[in-house]
C-alpha cells in the first residue's frame, strides 16, 4: 500500500507502460491529435464547399482523399481510441474494482499498434495520389486498375494494424470484465459504462476479423492476382460490400455504445438518482449489438438487391428503433423526479439526447428501402450519420472528459468556460448539420467538391456552422490545457451524492495503483 504512487521513469512509464491509467491517457492524447488532423480536414472541406465553384481544392483526387481520410481518422483514430482505449482503460478497472487490466502487456501492444496505424494512414494519404476511395473502399474503384500505386495498400495495412489493436483491446476488456470484478460486483451490479464496453468488445471481436479478412482479400486482389472482388476473374464486387457492411454496421454501434454508457453515468450522477430500468438499459445494449449484425444490407439498397431482400432489411432495420427508444426513455425517466445539477457534463448529456433523437428519426426514414431512391448517397445521409453517430459520440466524449478529468488529473475544469464551450459547440454542430437535411432532400449528392448553384444557400450556412464548431473545438483545447496545468485541485468525489460508482472512492488524481485491496461490494445496492 505504501508504494501506491511508485512510478517508473519517464521512458519506461510512457513507452513501455503496462498501467491501465497511463495507457488510457496515451489513448486520449492520440485521439486528440487525430481529432485535430481529422477536424482540420473537415473544416477545409467546408471551406471549399462554402460557395459554389472551385475555390481552394482544384485537385479532385485530393478532395476524395480528404473525404476518405476524415472518415478513417474520426472512426478509427478519434472516437474509438477516446471511448474504448481512453475512458475504457481508465475507468473499467476502476469501476469494477480491479487493480488493472487482465493482460497489461497486451494493453501496451494495443496502443502502440494503433499509433503505428495512425502513422501509416498519414503516410498513405501523402503517397502518390492518396486513397480517394471513400472510407468504404469499394472495389473496383479501390482495385489496382483504378487506384494504382501503394496509397491504398498502405491504407489497408493501416486498417489492419488498427483492427489488430482493437481486437487485442477487446479481448483484454472482455477478460477483465468477466474475471476481475471485485467480490460482490456481480454482472447485474456493473455500472452501465462497463456494460457498454463489454457489449462493444464483443462486437469488435466478431466484426473486425471480418473486415480483416475482407481487407486481406482486397490486398491480394490488388497485388497477388487473386479475384475475390474482380469480376473478370470470377469474383463479385458486391461481395466486398456485404463483407464491409457486415463489419461496418456493427462498427457504428461500436462507436455509439460506449457513448450510451458515458451518458448513463452522467445522467445518473447529476440527477442524483439511480438509473431507471437498469436491466432494461443493459439488455437494450445487448439487443442493439445483436440486431446490429443482421441489418448490414440497408447500406446497399441501391446496389441492385432483389426486392425481398430489401424488404427484410427494411423490417430488421426498423426494429433497431425499439431498443434505442428504450434507452432514450430510460434516460428521461432517470432525470424525472431528480434534483438535477446542470454542470457541463449534464449539458452534454442533454445535447446528446437531442442529437440522438434527431439522428434516430432520420434513421427511421432511411431504413425504408422504398424511399432510398431519393436519399441514398445524398447529404441527408451525411446529416443523419453525423447527428446520430459522429457528433453524438463527440458529445459523449466531451461529456465524459468534463465528467472524469478531475479524476484523471486531480484538477477540475473551469465550469463557466466549459459551459460557454458547450453552447458554442452545440450551436455550431446544429447550424452545420441541420441544413444538410435540406440539401440532401433537394438532391445534393455526397462526396462532390462543387455543387449546382441552387445548393449554395444551405451550404453557406453549413460552412458557417463548421467555423463555429471550430471555435468550440479550440476553446475546448484551451480549457483542457488550463485544467491540466492550473485547474483547481479536487478531492475524491467532486460531484457529491449522485456519484456512486467506485472510481469516486479513490483519490483524485487516481493513484498509480488502485484497488490493490479489492473492494467488497457484497450486499451493496445495484450499481448506479
Amino acid at each position: 500500500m505504501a508504494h501506491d504512487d511508485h512510478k517508473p521513469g519517464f521512458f519506461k512509464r510512457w513507452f513501455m507502460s503496462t498501467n491501465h491509467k497511463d495507457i488510457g491517457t496515451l489513448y486520449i492524447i492520440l485521439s486528440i491529435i487525430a481529432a485535430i488532423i481529422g477536424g482540420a480536414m473537415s473544416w477545409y472541406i467546408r471551406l471549399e464547399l462554402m460557395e459554389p465553384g472551385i475555390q481552394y481544392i482544384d485537385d479532385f483526387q485530393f478532395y476524395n482523399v480528404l473525404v476518405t481520410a476524415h472518415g478513417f481518422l474520426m472512426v478509427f483514430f478519434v472516437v474509438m481510441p477516446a471511448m474504448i482505449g481512453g475512458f475504457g482503460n481508465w475507468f473499467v478497472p476502476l469501476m469494477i474494482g480491479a487493480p488493472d487490466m487482465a493482460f497489461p502487456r497486451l494493453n501496451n501492444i494495443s496502443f502502440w499498434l494503433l499509433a503505428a496505424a495512425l502513422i501509416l494512414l498519414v503516410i498513405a494519404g501523402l503517397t502518390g495520389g492518396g486513397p480517394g476511395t471513400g472510407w468504404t473502399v469499394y472495389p473496383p474503384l479501390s482495385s489496382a486498375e483504378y487506384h494504382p500505386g501503394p496509397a491504398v495498400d498502405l491504407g489497408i495495412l493501416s486498417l489492419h494494424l488498427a483492427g489488430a489493436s482493437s481486437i487485442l483491446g477487446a479481448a483484454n476488456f472482455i477478460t477483465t470484465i468477466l474475471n476481475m470484478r471485485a467480490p460482490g460486483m456481480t454482472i447485474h451490479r456493473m455500472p452501465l459504462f462497463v456494460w457498454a464496453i463489454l457489449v462493444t468488445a464483443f462486437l469488435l471481436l466478431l466484426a473486425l476479423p471480418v473486415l480483416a479478412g475482407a481487407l486481406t482479400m482486397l490486398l491480394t486482389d490488388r497485388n497477388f492476382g487473386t479475384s475475390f472482388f474482380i469480376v473478370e476473374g470470377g469474383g463479385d464486387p458486391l461481395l466486398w460490400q456485404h463483407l464491409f457492411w457486415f463489419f461496418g454496421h456493427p462498427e457504428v454501434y461500436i462507436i455509439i455504445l460506449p457513448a450510451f454508457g458515458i451518458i448513463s453515468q452522467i445522467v445518473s450522477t447529476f440527477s442524483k438518482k439511480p438509473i431507471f430500468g437498469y436491466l432494461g438499459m443493459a439488455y437494450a445494449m445487448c439487443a442493439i449489438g445483436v440486431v446490429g449484425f443482421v441489418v448490414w444490407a440497408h447500406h446497399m439498397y441501391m446496389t441492385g438487391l432483389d426486392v425481398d431482400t430489401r424488404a427484410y432489411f427494411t423490417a430488421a432495420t426498423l426494429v433497431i428503433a425499439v431498443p434505442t427508444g428504450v434507452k432514450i426513455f430510460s434516460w428521461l425517466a432517470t432525470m424525472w423526479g431528480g434534483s438535477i445539477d446542470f454542470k457541463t457534463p449534464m449539458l452534454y448529456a442533454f445535447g446528446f439526447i437531442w442529437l440522438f433523437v434527431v439522428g434516430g428519426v432520420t434513421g427511421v426514414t432511411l431504413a425504408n428501402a422504398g424511399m432510398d431512391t431519393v436519399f441514398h448517397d445524398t447529404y441527408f445521409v451525411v446529416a443523419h450519420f453525423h447527428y446520430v453517430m459522429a457528433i453524438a459520440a463527440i458529445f459523449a466524449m466531451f461529456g465524459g472528459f468534463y465528467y472524469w478529468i478531475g479524476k484523471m488529473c486531480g484538477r477540475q475544469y473551469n465550469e463557466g468556460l466549459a459551459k460557454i464551450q458547450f453552447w458554442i459547440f452545440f450551436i455550431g454542430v446544429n447550424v452545420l448539420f441541420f441544413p444538410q437535411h435540406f440539401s440532401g432532400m433537394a438532391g445534393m449528392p455526397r462526396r462532390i467538391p462543387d455543387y449546382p448553384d441552387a445548393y449554395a444557400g444551405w451550404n453557406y450556412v453549413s460552412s458557417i456552422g463548421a467555423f463555429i464548431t471550430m471555435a468550440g473545438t479550440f476553446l475546448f483545447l484551451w480549457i483542457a490545457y488550463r485544467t491540466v496545468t492550473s485547474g483547481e485541485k479536487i478531492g475524491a468525489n467532486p460531484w457529491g451524492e449522485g456519484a456512486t460508482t467506485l472510481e469516486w472512492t479513490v483519490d483524485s488524481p487516481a493513484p498509480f495503483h488502485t484497488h490493490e485491496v479489492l473492494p467488497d461490494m457484497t450486499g451493496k445496492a445495484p450499481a448506479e
Partner: protein
Amino acid sequence: MVTTVTAGNLTVRNRRVGLMLALGVVAMVGLAYASVPLYQLFCQITGYGGTPKVGVVVEKATGAAAERVMTVMLDANVNKGLDWEFKPQVSKIKMPLGEETLAFYIARNLSDVAITGTATYNVTPFKAAEYVSKIECFCFTEQRLEAGEEMPMPVSFYIDPEIMNDPNTKDLENIVLSYTFFPSRKTASVETKDDNS
C-alpha cells in the same frame, strides 16, 4: 497470502478466456473467407443477384403456362479493356415456357492480336433468375478469338414453367439475359503467339 493465491488462479482463468476469444477471432476470419464460396453457392441455388441455374432440365409446360410466351431481351456488354465487338444476333426473342431455346450472340475481335475473353452473366428481374436454366453457354468457358476473327456465341436455355407459380414473377412477360465480356484474367488475355487454349 490470500492475494497471491487468487492472482495465480486469475492468471490461469484469464488465459483460458483469452484463448477462447482468440479462437472466436480465428473463426470469424475463417467465416469471412468461407463467405466467398458460400456466397457463390447461395447465389446459384437461390438465383440471388440474378444468377441463373445451370444445366437443370425442366418439365415441359402444361396448362396456362403452356400458353405463356416470355419475351427475352438479349443484352450485351463489352468491358472497355477488351477490344471486341459483342452483340446479340437479334435483340429480343420470344420463347414458350419449358422449352429449350437457342440464342446467338456474335463476337468479333477488333484488334490485330488473339485475345481470350470471359463473360459474366445475369438475369433481370433478379426474381426471375431462379427459373432460368442454362444448358449450354459460351459463358461457361473462356473464349479465344484470333485477330479479326468473328464467332457466333450460342446459349441454350429453358425458362421453368414454375415461374408462373411464384407471386413475384407470375405476371412477368419480359426478362433480360445480360452478358458482359471481359479480358480473361486467368489466361493471359492478349497473346502474340498461337497456343492451344
